């Protein structure tokens, strides 16, 4: 039996429930956003010999084959002054220590909060990363902008407000605002975006053809977007699997770009990917693979 932990009204969770229901996969939902459920642990605080009780169901820990955990759309931790939806620390500890499969354990998912940290892991797995500048210095940005022939992307360093934009002359006028805090600048890489969803040891690659710098928001600019399944060569597939494992993840959304020269750049690894966005259009069976992966003991 699979346990879904998160906000039952989160669109990704609603999508999964619909797919798993039609695929006849057994699951229960523990709604973290609405304080539902009772968790019974053994005297060591472990769930190994415990149980979880929901609105009208009870699940013994030994029946549990896998957990899908998605903390988005959940309430922030009480008193937290953070941009992230925080998980109760004791519950996070429980998920981190569960002996069954978890997609993803909270501890592993945190690498996505620092893109530069992830970039170091990414380059160790053989992917190219774009020339990057992290700075609070307007002069350093101007120099970088000139070096890169004025083709520079500005994006957040953290996982907050993660929208990529082309640096424009209007942005340059606002560079003095960097005194409030640093920002990340990257050399623009031309080519097609490729989103790779890794589930266990399976890869589902989607090629995105779009003229927008950040295709996720192309609709806001009135720009069309084309998505289709694509096949990665064995080496790139192997790097994706290696990177996912290195970050301790079992489910990942890897953002790649294939340059016109055929080089693969990797930008980040999403630990809570919104795979329905791609699956609805390409019909790649990510949710089914995830269900089957979590159902296998």
């Amino acid at each position, binding site marked *: 039996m699979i346990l879904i932990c998160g906000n039952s009204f989160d669109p990704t969770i609603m999508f999964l429930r619909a797919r798993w229901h039609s695929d006849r996969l057994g699951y229960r939902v523990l709604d973290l956003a609405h304080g539902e459920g009772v968790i019974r*642990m053994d005297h060591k605080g472990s769930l190994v010999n415990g149980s979880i009780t929901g609105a009208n169901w009870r699940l013994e820990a030994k029946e549990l084959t896998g957990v899908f955990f998605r903390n988005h759309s959940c309430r922030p*931790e009480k008193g937290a002054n953070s941009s992230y939806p925080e998980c109760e620390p004791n519950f996070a500890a429980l998920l981190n220590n569960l002996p069954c499969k978890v997609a993803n354990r909270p501890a592993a998912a945190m690498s996505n909060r620092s893109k530069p940290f992830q970039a*170091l892991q990414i380059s160790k797995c053989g992917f190219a*990363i774009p020339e990057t500048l*992290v700075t*609070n210095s307007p002069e*350093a940005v101007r120099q970088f902008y000139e070096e890169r022939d004025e083709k520079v992307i500005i994006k957040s360093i953290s996982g*907050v*407000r993660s929208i990529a934009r082309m640096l424009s002359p209007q942005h340059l006028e606002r560079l003095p605002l960097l005194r*409030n805090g640093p920002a990340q600048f990257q050399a623009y890489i031309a080519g097609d975006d490729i989103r790779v969803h890794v589930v266990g040891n399976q890869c589902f690659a989607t090629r995105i053809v779009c003229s927008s710098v950040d295709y996720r928001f192309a609709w806001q600019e009135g720009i069309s977007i084309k998505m289709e399944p694509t096949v990665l060569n064995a080496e790139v597939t192997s790097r994706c699997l290696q990177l996912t494992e290195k970050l301790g993840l079992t489910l990942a959304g890897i953002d790649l770009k294939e340059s016109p020269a055929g080089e693969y750049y990797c930008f980040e690894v999403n630990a809570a990917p919104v795979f329905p966005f791609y699956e609805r259009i390409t019909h790649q069976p990510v949710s089914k693979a995830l269900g089957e992966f979590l159902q296998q003991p």
Partner: protein
Amino acid sequence: MYLFLGEADDGLCVNLRQALEERGAQVRVVPDPFSESIRFSWRVNSASTSSTLVFADGTCLCDRDISGVFLRRKKALITSTSSDDYSYIQAEIEAASLGWIWTLQCPVVNRLPPWLWYTRKPPVQFWSRLLRTNGLQEFECCGPRSDGGSKNWDDFGALDVGDPAICYGHACIVGRSVVWNIDRSESLHPYESALLEFTRYVGLSFLEVAFAETREGIGVKEVDPFPDLSRFGESSTRAITEALATLFADSNQQSCPQ
């Protein structure tokens, strides 16, 4: 030059600064490397990484000028009052700082992994698998009921057993040294090698571990990668400071080409 990311008046920063300066080293305490008074630039690509800090007094530090980093605070101190977007800036500074300390070749105490960087105060259950792997056991968290304890979800975050009366002792692990806040009794002796292994296993070099008595023996009640020296006496504090200074000095000696 050693960089301390923390407060100049932090007791441990003061003591360690003195210990390193007595060894002829230079130390600079920086509350926030991204503050308005410091120009921070860090470039990274597939093959290399390099950073530069230019201070208000004109001092310029490149990666090779930094002998070591002592991290005393992970949360950014945001000095700017002109922004109304505190939490976003906080997230950006934390993300940049975490990435940066992982690119430095010099010793960093502690080079925290993301899960520790972003968890405000991990409960002991967070460490349980790592503790058990290294021969330690965590303190029972659900009270003395062997048949299990129930927790309503809303109360879950408040799960705590903190009964200060049964706290047995605090150990501070610094590199390959263990310093106790009490006279080490025979009962604690067997735990020292496990503590050293545990600290090495989690990739840290400076850690405080609190022990408490359980029905099954002595268990770990708390693990803190930001040791609080107010729990240690004067002689223990001196020993911890010396061990830290030696750790930095030895790490640099080992990394110097012969």
